[in-house]
């Protein structure tokens, strides 16, 4: 070990005002949330904030020493830019600590109209190389980049050396297999676009059916995404976590990835040493209790690492998808 570790910011999901308070109470350094429309990538019914709730949330966060970040991280289709413009204007007006953006047009609007508004580049922009990151920082005034979940820690270390912005990385939660911001699978099956509408696998298009053999079939739109035997618990149908067959695999297999969650607890010291300055927990769609538990566990882990200890996050396995976890791409190139 050479340089002392820089204390990373713990960035936590707030799908609702209740989750926001829970995250702040559990020790979040920053919370991120979205508005109740297509301007953010978790545009689910019953989630997100009205402008009034956002103002109150910001006050609450600031009172407790936490930052509030607003995700405006989808891609406005031509002709609808006004909605995203309003979201950015609101972010500047309310005085959020940063807006998390993905679309170059949204970023350009924010940089030009509200030069004082701090911009973070969303994972949805898929900036996975120093060249791309430098482009967004130099051309669009981006101050922090959230990395796609596709790099090894060794690659992240080399990358942080080649850029001079803050780097944020996901450490826990859902792990999508496709490059974020570059996936139209949901739109192909349902007519709802993840990029333009902010929804992956919309609940309205999900169905579970009893199969003839007593098992269960999960569907997204017309397409069967997976089938489950009597003892298996039926998972939510996400296309990149389904089972399919092909010429070389006549038995259904996970063609993209198995349903499991990212948990980097064991690699946290390496990630911090690699120059990651903010650690992100996924899960704006999760319950307040979930947020509370995960944030508290990561708060304790980060504090323990900074104090020279070893984090103990064994308890988090119960909160992972299907109780299965992975270090995803972070540990080895063999994930690819």
């Amino acid at each position, binding site marked *: 070990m050479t340089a002392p570790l820089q204390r990373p910011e713990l960035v936590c999901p707030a799908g609702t005002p209740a989750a926001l308070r829970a995250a702040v109470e559990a020790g979040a350094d920053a919370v991120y949330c979205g508005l109740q429309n297509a301007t953010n990538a978790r545009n689910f019914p019953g989630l997100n904030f009205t402008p009034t709730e956002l103002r109150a949330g910001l006050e609450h966060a600031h009172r407790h020493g936490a930052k509030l970040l607003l995700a405006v991280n989808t891609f406005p*289709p031509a002709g609808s830019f006004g909605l995203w413009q309003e979201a950015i204007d609101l972010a500047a007006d309310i005085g959020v600590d940063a807006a998390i953006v993905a*679309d170059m*047009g949204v970023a350009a609007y924010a940089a030009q109209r509200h030069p004082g508004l701090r911009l973070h580049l969303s994972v949805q922009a898929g900036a996975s190389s120093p060249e791309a990151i430098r482009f967004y920082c130099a051309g669009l005034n981006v101050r922090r980049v959230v990395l796609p979940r596709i790099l090894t820690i060794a690659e992240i270390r080399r990358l942080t050396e080649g850029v001079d912005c803050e780097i944020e990385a996901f450490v826990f939660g859902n792990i999508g297999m496709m490059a974020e911001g570059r996936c139209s699978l949901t739109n192909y099956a349902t007519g709802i676009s993840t*990029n333009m509408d902010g929804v992956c696998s919309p609940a309205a298009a999900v169905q579970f059916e009893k199969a003839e053999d007593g098992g269960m079939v999960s569907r997204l739109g017309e397409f069967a995404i997976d089938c489950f035997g009597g003892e298996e618990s039926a998972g939510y149908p996400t296309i990149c976590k389904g089972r399919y067959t092909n010429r070389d695999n006549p038995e259904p297999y996970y063609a993209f990835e198995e349903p499991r969650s990212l948990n980097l607890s064991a690699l946290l010291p390496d990630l911090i040493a690699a120059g990651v300055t903010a650690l992100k927990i996924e899960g704006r769609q999760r319950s307040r209790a979930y947020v509370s538990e995960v944030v508290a566990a990561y708060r304790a882990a980060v504090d323990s690492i900074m104090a020279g200890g070893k984090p103990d996050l064994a308890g988090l396995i119960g909160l992972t998808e299907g109780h299965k976890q992975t270090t995803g791409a972070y540990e080895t190139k063999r994930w690819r």
Partner: protein
Amino acid sequence: MIELTIGPNFFHWPDAQKRDFDLGLAADPHIGTVYLGEVVCSKRIPFFDVTSVRTALERAGKKVVLSTLSEVTVAADRRAVRDACGVPDCEIEVNDAAAFESLAGRPFRIGQLLNCYNEEVLRFLAGRGATHVCLPSEMPLAAVEVMARTAESLGVTTEVQVFGRASLALSARCYHARAHGRVKDNCQFVCERDPDGLDLRTVDGDDFLAINGIQTLSWRYLNLSREVGRLRDVGVTHLRLSPHSFDMAGIAGVFAGLCSGRLAADVADEQLAALAPSAVFANGFAHRQPGYLRV
């Protein structure tokens, strides 16, 4: 007059097949622009020499554009993008933001795999040298119309893919390698076995997707024969045919007929069905419907 193009070949065809196909385009009277270059996987690049094909096509009067990689992560990807952007006297089509730094002010085209969904992105990139945009294939016609109008006012030309499997997703993981119990680093180029991608079926036996290395494509083929008239009317200047192992010259002939008004869409569809017998057509994205539908 609307121009037909051949988009970058997404698939890893054997060297000779790829070369024959590209050289054959030199004599195709319907094709104005040909996009060369590897957009899916940097591991495939050493296999194919673009330069000689480019020369032959340019001699035949074709416009040649070099497309860059769409997913740029490791050193080899980054080198490939830098190399492509350094090729002199050739237009570059950008498919990932990693390319901008190497372009250093040189004019460029916006590829269909770079997210350019709205007027503001187009304005921003036109200000940095974009001369042409190929729109994402999930973009509905109403948005295409706004984009074409904006592009025209900026002096930018507009392209839409009208034939071929739609690229639906990119990843860092190679799904071809995974299908064979391998990982990307020891893939042994199994993607070469599938000239149009490896078909994925649901547990019900329905055809759904196709995988091609790190790329996931629609199982159905985009066919915008019914929309060609509207695309032309709203100011789209170029129509893209994405290469497949079918008779692409025949397919280009059909779209040329649609562009000139010589062929009606239903007649064109009959001819396309004969030229691409295993292809099931879709146009749902254009109509804000599930992408796999034909409406």
